[in-house]
């Protein structure tokens, strides 16, 4: 069979054209996209922290470390509690020793005695992953090992993470760290393994004062949703445009 150059080009063109349509039905998916199909699209998990109720007992941090296998002694933690002591002269003393795990039983801050008569106000602020609507950590992961589920939780695939630390750098809240045992990026997951089964997160379950609550933003009858809709709430660092989904009641302007 003879084949002129013209025929060859013609046939190549035809074959390409014919193959384009069926091939375009296929789509290259990143692992992140595949994993993103986990979760329930009728749910959007949100968190509500009432800072006025927090007494800094540290039970949430204890519970979290136990529940999520975060080594006990290193200072790293998926969640933590910060203490703010604001002085009459405008100075702020902030600390979170051992992530607030053992409670704030010492009135000293970093070995410094704080004169009680000069304190204007003091309060505690629990922190955890904001499960942002537009998470920068997911955006910057070079391999797609971290992903957002349909119900809004950002998770890490421990079998695929290369441990570059870019997500740790990209999080404006300092939520992420390297898990000392698995050697991959680690973060708060709102106890995804628990909430999926209808349970509360470990920190919510263990808060004796109801300062921490979790809810479904897509359910208008959810008490947490109602509070977020009706009360005056605030989020942390909204200037980064990540649309954080942990809402705070009683947030002070000094909170970092």
């Amino acid at each position: 069979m003879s084949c002129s150059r013209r025929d060859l080009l013609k046939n190549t063109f035809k074959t390409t054209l014919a193959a384009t349509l069926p091939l375009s039905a296929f789509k290259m998916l990143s692992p992140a996209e595949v994993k993103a199909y986990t979760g329930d699209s009728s749910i959007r998990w949100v968190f509500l922290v009432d800072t006025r109720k927090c007494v800094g007992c540290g039970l949430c941090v204890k519970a979290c470390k136990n529940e999520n296998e975060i080594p006990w002694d290193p200072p790293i933690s998926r969640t933590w509690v910060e203490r703010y002591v604001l002085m009459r002269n405008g100075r702020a003393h902030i600390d979170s020793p051992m992530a607030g795990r053992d409670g704030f039983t010492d009135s000293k801050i970093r070995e410094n005695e704080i004169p009680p008569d000069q304190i204007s106000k003091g309060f505690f602020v629990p922190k955890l992953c904001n499960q942002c609507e537009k998470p920068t950590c997911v955006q910057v992961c070079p391999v797609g090992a971290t992903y957002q589920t349909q119900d809004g939780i950002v998770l890490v695939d421990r079998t695929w993470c290369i441990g570059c630390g870019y997500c740790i750098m990209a999080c404006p809240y300092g939520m992420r760290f390297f898990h000392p045992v698995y050697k991959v990026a680690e973060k708060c997951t709102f106890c995804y393994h628990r909430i999926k089964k209808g349970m509360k997160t470990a920190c919510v379950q263990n808060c004796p004062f109801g300062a921490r609550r979790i809810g479904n933003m897509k359910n208008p009858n959810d008490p947490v949703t109602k509070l977020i809709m009706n009360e005056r709430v605030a989020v942390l660092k909204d200037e980064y445009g990540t649309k954080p989904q942990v809402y705070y009641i009683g947030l002070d302007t000094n909170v970092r």
Partner: protein
Amino acid sequence: MSVEQVVAQGAEHIAVHGMDWTTKELFTYPNEFIYWSIQIVMYPYMTGLVAGAFVLSSLYHVFGQKDLKTIARFSLVFSLALLPVAMMPLLLHLQQPLRNMNVMLTPHFTSAIAAFGIVFSTYAAIVLTEIWFVYRVFFVDQVNALKGKEGTRDRFMYYLYLVLTLGAFDTGDAAVAKDKKAVTIMAGIGIPVACFLHGYAGFIFGSVKANALWMSPLIPVIFIMSAIVSGIALCMLTYIIIMEWKKWSAIIAKGKGDETVQLIAGAELDVITKTSRYLLGFMVAAITLELLDLIFRGYTAMKSWDILRSVMYGKDFVNIFVLQYGLGNLVPFLMLLIPGTTIRRVFFATILVLFGVFMMRWNVVIGGQAFSLSFAGYMHYHLPIIPHNLETYKEGLFGALTVIATPFVLFWIINKVTPSLEYKFNNE
């Protein structure tokens, strides 16, 4: 190993990444440490050297800067030796280095790092192609010269060169002219790709919106300029060292007054004087942009400026203004500017320039982590000197020295195949 097993072994086995070399001051978030340490300083530094060395060689190949002819071939081969070393710091830094291929397998393109594999391999292909065209005639000559020779080494080199010719034995005028054209084209494509490779390394930092120091659209451009500065300086430095070594071996062999010695010394000074003009030009561009960035931050004084100022003018003052701008920029700038250039002066000036660019990388990478995301505290980086485990080796002084030493070893090997330091070229 499960968490229980590790916990059972006792807490001293649990090494939190970053805790070994970070000390904290005032309030920082519990999870904050210097996660990106010395190897991430080395990464833009080494990529910068690659890009800079290539751009230097392209100045001759594309823009026909005849004065750079001698150093062009050398810097091209040297940029090949530097290439694998641009990846090394990343591998040493990864917590899961064996998974490095994941970046190529499932690149997640919203991430600046994801394109690394693609940009990097494109660039490697360009460098290899260009070198092949430059050396093709040489390969053919070697094959012809080694044909029929006995001895293991000659046989090995014969087959090596035979493979390297890729079957193209035509050394006629038309074919050589085509080679030259191909070199020009590859070098022409190479310049934007080299700049992209490095500008993109800058983008990795400049796009981190959480980091007040890094977040700036100027960072990629600053990185390109300082990359070219460091690349040219390294080529000059290596060139001086090798030529001096040749000169001294000629002096030892033939005596000080010999014609060869004069020839080498003359050629060396000529090349170095001309190359240093380009170095000065790029230095001006780099410093201008850096100062613009600094002034702009101070003038706009955003929320982060308070802590940035306390880091720049306080804690890192010596690193930034004394070591980087003073010793690394101003002093070598004056040394190169003063008329009556001598090899010795240029030698020390290029070392200072290289040091200055290294300090710039250090001040960006480490300086960017010197303050807490809470803007209420500081972190200090203590470079691990004596390694006491794998991590403090990899991300310590000796890890960095390993990275620095590798390109010279590679160059020594590559130069055996493609000699780039003859001071008389016939076929270019």
